[in-house]
Structures are given as structure tokens and as C-alpha cells.
């Protein structure tokens, strides 16, 4: 069927091809785009009836999520207790939880659905800033005293536990650690930070409670659905050990006809296996139209809001001491060199501007030794980069994928605590990327924030924070520039722009199918543009209706 020629009519086709920016018809054969234009333009390919399925829709190139994690498919094993509405991969909307009572009620409902009586109940995405007081063990004891109850904070750094978990872990009032939070009278609250929390969970429930993706093809499908229903047709899983089990799962799942995205995993570049380069080479033999190995991910520092990102002078606005190197700068040089020499593309997580500097130093150093054109090494997040750093990126041929969603979710915190006014204005500096000619994409880092390219584009266009303030008005970009970053821009950072990212002859027939025209709506309503579904390789995938 896919070998037949089908001409689709649409209300409008936004192509991202400057030669033919808009069109009304697209012809598809064998999963690829045969032609774009008017019906007359395409009649030479086929005389058959025009397919009217999408006749009243607006088509865009399928969106490309350049920084997400398939882990998104696993978090929905557990109960969402975050502060804002979030849709699960079945399209069900989970309202934000704004009070402790609402949180307890949500967990109680979930508790009633759990099977075995000693199974752990886990809530995730909790943000203590948006409820009236700190969550305590006594609150969670109201959910259950007979099974472990754990709530993971959105920061990824803190957990809350009920009394049973503390008891099982052997935590007592006399356990002495600055990572065990206490109330003003010195009593345990049931909040635990960092590795202390992980240690406690490992002792009490035998691990983090999260499954291994390699064992969970259903979770990979769920991740794909979560992406698909927001208009995404290609998504990365941007940090994965790629164990043989996971590789096998990815291969089998992506081979399914109804798997709705192209999956691009990135290998964890600090993996201790000595044959890393050869291993990636061996994986690339499995590449298909729906699965593409070859990216390498390195993580240089932590997160800004967790005060673990590495900042240059003058450091954190609230005086916190500088963050953590996850890879020392010298080591980073060695790792970049290893993969660069092998012809691979390296994506480097750098949140703070000092980490960005070290990554640029590493790339510059390696390029002086081993010049290579079109390497497209990409800085991921790169949230605090200065204009001078963007100019270095341009000079070195480095791409950037900016974390535009951060402006909304953490912009207020960056202004007040981490970066302060002034530097917060250049948070995720899309306009500087444009001005300096650095090829750029934007991302959600799902499940850190919800996957949703139109929302991400909205963030870059409006730069509104949760509190409603505009952060760094000069860094706002146009709707078209934002949409380009979410399609062709991201495709370029993955070296896939020959195949995806625009509606153009020869590329995969990957479309985002929209009910509204994102270039016509008020830019402030960009995030509200309705997604009808997607087309991937000529196959139509309607989004689940709620």
C-alpha cells in the first residue's frame, strides 16, 4: 500500500522549505515525499483521487524532539502529583495538585488500585513550592501505614517517605545527616535529599522502584505515544547505556508498523566498556528508518536549579557554592577526542556557563588535533551561555539545543535565586543563537518537563514564566523561527536534516497534523494550537482523543 502514490490535500502546508514555504497538497510514495505544491503541480505523479483525510488540517514537518528520554514512558507506572496539568500517553489529563489534601486524595485513589498489599506506592513530579506547607511522613501515613509510600520531587533531588519506609530503612530520630530534613523542633519530616534518599529507598524497597527500560517494551511504546500526540515524529532518548537488552527492545518495538516515531538513542559516553566506539559501530548496523544509533551523550555538570551546574564568576546569585563537575574538563577533552576521532557526533550536557566554556575548550582542543568538517557536536541545555560563547560555537561549528521550557518552569527561580536579574535575561538565548548563526534546536528534556514542541516554541516566542513575567524580552524569537527550531533545526543537530525536518521532495513523509494554523494564531496562543495527530512515513497516526 505504501508503494502507491497518495496525494493529500490540506488546508495549508507549512513546509520549512524556503523555495516553497506554503502549499496545499503533498504527494507521498513509499513513505517519502514525492512532491509538494498545488494539485496541478502534483498531477504528473498520479491521477488517482486526492486523499481528503487531512483536507481541513494544517500540516507542518513532523516535530523533532532533540532532547528527551524514553524514561518518560516509565514515569507513568506511577502517580503524577505535580503542580501543573500533565497529560499521560493515553491522552488523559492529570490536573495539577495544589494542596497537601489534594495530593493525599490522589495517592489514596492510586493506593486503592494497587494489587499486592506490600507493593510500593510512588508519586512523582511533586513540587513543594506549590503547596501550602512541607509534605510530611504523617501525611503519607494517611495514605498507607502498611505499604511503602514514596513521593519523588520534580527536582529529582528530594524524596518524601512514609513512616514505614523510614522504619524499614532503619532511619531513626538520632540518624545524623544534613540530608535528612527536620522541622523547626528537630523532628524528622520524612524528607530526604540526594543520595541519602536513594540509599534509604534501596534499603527499604530494594531500589528506586523504577523498572529497566530494556524489560519494558510497553514503556517504550508509551514514550512514543506521549511524543506522537504532541506532533512529534522523531524523538531522542538522549542518555542510555544501550545494554544488549535495551537494544533488542528498541529494535523489536521500532520494527512494529504502528510504532509512531523515529527513535534516536544516544549512548552514554562515560560508559566504562573499553570498546565503546566499536560497540556503537556494531549498533549502527541495526539502524533502520525508525531507529538510528550513533549519537554519544556526555554530561559535564548538574542542574542550575539544583545548584549543581558549574557557573563562571560571579557564580550563584544567592551565594551558593559552585556546582559539580560530572566529568572533569580534562577528562571531557579525552572523551570528546575518543568519539570525535571515530567520526561520531557528541552531544554534551552543559547547564552552567562554566561547563559550556569547558565543553567549547574541549571541542576546540580536539579540532586543533583532528580537524573535521561538519562534526555538528552539540551543546545540550547550554542555558547560561554568553554572546561570546555563542560566537565561539559559531566559529567551531558547534550546534546548540536550548532548554526553552526552563524559562516557563524555572524562570522565576533563576531570577530570584540562581542567576539573578541580568543573567537570567539570557537564559536559553534563542535570539543570540539566531544572531550568531549557531544552528539551534529547543527541547523539553521529558520527563523533566512535558514533551510538547508547540509549548516549547511558545516558551521561546513569549518567554513568559510561571508567574507571568517576561524574562529577557530581547531574547524572544518569531513564531516561524521557533517552529523551524523544533523541526529542521533539531533535525540538523541530529544530522538527520537530509531525511526529516521539512516537507520537501525526497524526505520522509513525516507531518505534524494540526487543527489550527500556528502561524496565524496569536503568538501567545501558540501552545494552545490543537494537534490532531501525525503522519510518519506516510502512515497516519491520529492522537488519542480525550
Amino acid at each position, binding site marked *: 500500500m505504501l508503494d502507491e502514490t497518495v496525494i493529500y490535500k490540506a488546508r495549508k502546508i507549512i513546509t520549512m522549505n524556503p523555495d516553497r514555504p506554503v502549499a496545499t497538497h503533498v504527494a507521498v510514495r513509499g513513505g517519502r515525499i514525492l512532491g509538494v505544491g498545488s494539485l496541478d503541480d502534483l498531477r504528473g505523479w498520479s491521477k488517482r483521487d486526492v486523499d481528503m483525510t487531512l483536507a481541513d488540517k494544517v500540516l507542518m514537518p513532523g516535530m523533532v524532539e532533540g532532547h528527551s528520554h524514553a524514561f518518560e514512558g516509565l514515569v507513568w507506572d506511577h502517580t503524577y502529583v505535580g503542580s501543573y496539568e500533565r497529560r499521560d500517553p493515553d491522552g488523559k489529563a492529570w490536573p495539577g495538585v495544589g494542596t497537601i489534601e489534594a495530593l493525599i486524595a490522589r495517592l489514596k485513589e492510586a493506593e486503592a488500585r494497587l494489587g499486592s498489599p506490600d507493593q510500593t506506592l510512588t508519586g512523582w513530579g511533586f513540587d513543594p513550592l506549590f503547596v501550602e506547607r512541607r509534605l510530611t511522613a504523617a501525611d503519607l501515613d494517611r495514605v498507607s501505614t502498611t505499604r511503602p509510600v514514596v513521593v519523588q520531587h520534580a527536582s529529582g533531588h528530594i524524596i518524601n517517605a512514609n513512616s514505614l519506609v523510614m522504619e524499614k530503612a*532503619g*532511619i531513626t530520630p538520632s*540518624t*545524623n*545527616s*544534613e*540530608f535528612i530534613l527536620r522541622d523547626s523542633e528537630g523532628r524528622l519530616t520524612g524528607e530526604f535529599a*540526594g*543520595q*541519602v534518599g*536513594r*540509599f*534509604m529507598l*534501596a*534499603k527499604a524497597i530494594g*531500589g528506586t522502584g523504577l523498572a529497566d527500560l530494556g524489560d519494558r517494551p510497553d514503556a517504550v511504546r508509551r514514550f512514543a505515544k506521549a511524543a506522537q500526540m504532541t506532533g512529534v515524529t522523531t524523538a531522542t532518548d538522549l542518555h542510555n*547505556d544501550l545494554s544488549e537488552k535495551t537494544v533488542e527492545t528498541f529494535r523489536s518495538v521500532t520494527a512494529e508498523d504502528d510504532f509512531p516515531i523515529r527513535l534516536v538513542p544516544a549512548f552514554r559516553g562515560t560508559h*566504562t566498556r*573499553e570498546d565503546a566506539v566499536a560497540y556503537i559501530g556494531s549498533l549502527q548496523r541495526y539502524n533502520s528508518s525508525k531507529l538510528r544509533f550513533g549519537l554519544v551523550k556526555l554530561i559535564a555538570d548538574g542542574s542550575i536549579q539544583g545548584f549543581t551546574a*558549574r557557573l563562571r564568576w560571579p557564580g550563584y546569585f544567592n551565594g551558593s*557554592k*559552585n556546582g*559539580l*563537575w*560530572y*566529568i*572533569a*574538563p*580534562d*577528562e571531557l577533552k579525552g572523551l570528546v577526542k575518543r568519539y570525535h576521532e571515530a567520526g561520531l557526533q557528541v552531544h554534551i550536557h552543559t547547564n552552567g556557563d*562554566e561547563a559550556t566554556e*569547558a565543553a567549547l575548550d574541549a571541542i576546540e582542543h580536539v579540532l586543533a588535533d583532528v580537524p573535521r568538517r561538519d562534526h555538528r557536536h552539540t551543546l545540550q541545555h547550554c542555558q547560561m551561555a554568553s554572546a561570546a560563547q555563542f560566537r565561539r560555537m559559531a566559529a567551531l561549528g558547534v550546534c546548540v539545543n536550548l532548554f526553552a521550557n526552563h524559562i516557563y518552569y524555572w524562570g522565576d527561580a533563576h531570577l530570584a535565586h540562581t542567576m539573578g536579574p541580568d543573567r537570567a535575561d539570557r537564559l536559553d538565548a534563542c535570539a543570540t543563537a539566531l544572531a550568531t548563526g549557531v544552528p539551534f534546536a529547543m527541547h523539553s528534556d521529558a520527563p523533566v518537563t512535558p514533551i510538547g514542541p508547540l509549548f516549547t516554541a511558545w516558551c521561546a516566542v513569549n518567554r513568559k514564566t510561571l508567574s507571568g513575567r517576561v524574562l529577557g524580552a530581547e531574547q524572544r524569537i518569531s513564531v516561524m523561527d521557533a517552529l523551524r527550531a523544533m523541526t529542521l533545526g533539531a533535525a540538523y543537530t541530529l544530522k538527520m536534516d537530509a531525511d526529516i525536518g521539512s516537507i520537501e521532495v525526497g524526505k520522509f513523509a513525516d507531518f505534524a497534523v494540526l487543527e489550527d494554523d500556528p502561524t496565524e494564531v496569536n503568538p501567545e496562543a501558540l501552545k494552545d494550537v490543537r494537534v490532531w495527530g501525525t503522519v510518519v512515513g506516510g502512515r497516519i497516526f491520529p492522537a488519542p482523543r480525550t
Partner: protein
Amino acid sequence: MVRTPVTVIGGFLGAGKTTLLNHLLRHTDQRLAVLVNDFGEINIDAELIASHDGNTVNLSNGCICCSIGDSLVEALIGVMQQAERPEHIVIEASGVADPARIAELATLDASLELNAVVVLTDAPRLPDLVRDKYVGDVVEQQLQSADLIIMNKIDRLSAIDRRDATEVLLRLAPDARVIEAVNASVPGELVLDAGRDLDALATAPPSSGTGSCCHGPDCNDPDHHHDHHGHDHDRRHANLFATCTLSADKPVPRAALARFLDGLPKDVLRLKGLVLTDENPSRPMLLQMVGRRWTLDADHRLDVAPKTRLVAIAVAAEFDAANLQRGFAALQ
């Protein structure tokens, strides 16, 4: 409950952590569990390897060596759940980690006890490293977290550079105890808890007076077990370090003891032994001090006579043993 001591070995990349771990694994008579970041760098002699199972290597001397992989927490719990619990757990911190953070884990579990945070430093690179724009603060924090600093590779230092490196340490970690070393070779009993030694210590006849001292390999006092672990006695160690015993006839007031320990001269690197305090004059407490960190344990299960007897190990160069003994005797 018998607590398993935990020692964290920290230090920046290239400081010699792996060399030290290799050294400890080869020269121990305890069943160590050593958690390392990278197996590949641990150079275990093939004949020492009894079996290799995924993330764990079992050595013929009873030690195990485990790869930390992605989760230190899980690796540590795995070691704690071993059928035969190790006598001492040694954790290698990553080169960019603050070892004090890792040491936190040992305070969380009633069956663990922090023995010490030992930080190695590459002495020839130290002055440059602390000025490095990217990692200067990391190196500084590591040194400040140390109970005991091993100033490694001193054979590669000129006199001038040695002074520079020493000045850096004095400035950044004025309270730390420092040992100089070549190839990270330091006596195991300085770093780890030499538990078995204690029994011998407690049953040994007390020497005359308030204690006795020796300053090297020529010492013939039978109390001084220079070669007590049966491994090679390194003459250079013996010349670098002096030992000295401290004893007291009457129970020592606990508060005064704490002040004494906190105020010890920096050349005292290690104290171990039993001490009778005024809190329980019939049963001695177990005192362990590594570098500047000390613990008093009343819950030990050792079957010992009610008396005070401690062994101190100090840097030999300017160590005034008699003064130390006088100070201790004055506590009674």
C-alpha cells in the same frame, strides 16, 4: 552491634587513588570490600583473583573488589548484604567528587561507621591544580574534607616545589594531618582499622611507666609489632613514622579526653586502643583515630581487661613522644 568501618579514598584525577587501593588490597590481613569506579584501572595480580563475577572480583586473600557502576548506593548495599560481611569497606570517590559527601552514607546505617576520609594529592601538580580555573575549587574542597591527606609523588618534587605544595596544604587545610608518600605507599594500619591488632594490644603486658616509644627499625621493644601483619616491613616507613604507647592507671575523664584528642599535635596521625573513662571505669571503650577523626565506641564486643592502653603513630621527624605521654598521663 559491631559496626563495619568505612573509609573513603578521595583525591583529584591522577592523585594515586587506584595505586593506594592496589597497595591496600595486597597488604591487608582483613577482608576488605573495595568499591572502585573503574575495574580497568585496578591492576589486580591474576594469581590473586579467585573468581570474577560481573561487577565483583573475589580475591584469594578474602577481599572483594566491586565496580561502583552507576550507583554507589546500590554497590554499597550489595557489599553490606554479602553472605560474609567484610571487615572493612573502602570506597573510592570519583576524581571530581567531594569525598565528604560520600562519607555521609556511612552515617546513615547503624551497621556502618565512618573510619576516615583519606584524600590523596598529586603533590607536584598541587599548586597548579588549586589555581586551575575549572577545578581549583573542587581540589580545595577535597582537601578540606580530608581527615588524612596523603601528599603523593613527593619524589618528583624539588625542594622549592615541595615548599610550595606544603604551603598550599597549610593554607587550604590547616587542620589536616598530612603524610608524605611515594607511589601512594603508606602503611595500611595508618589508613585502615587494624582490628586484629587490638587483641594483641589488649593482652600484651603493659610496658613500664606511662608508655614507651620507638623511632625506627632498630627498636627492640617486644610491644612494638613492626612486622605484625607479616607483610614486608618497609624500612622507609619505619623511618618516617614513630610509634608510642600511652597508658593510664586510672580512668580518664571523658571530657578531658575529648579535649586532648582535639588538641593533638598535627604530627600524630593515628591512635588506636582501649581507654577506660570515668563513664564506665570497669569496661574500656574502643578509641579509633585516623587523621583528625576519632571515635569512641562503648559497644564493641572485645573481651578485654579493664585498662587503658593506646598506640599512637606519628610523623617521626619532630615528634615529641615524651610530651604526648605526659599530656595523656595528666588527664587522669
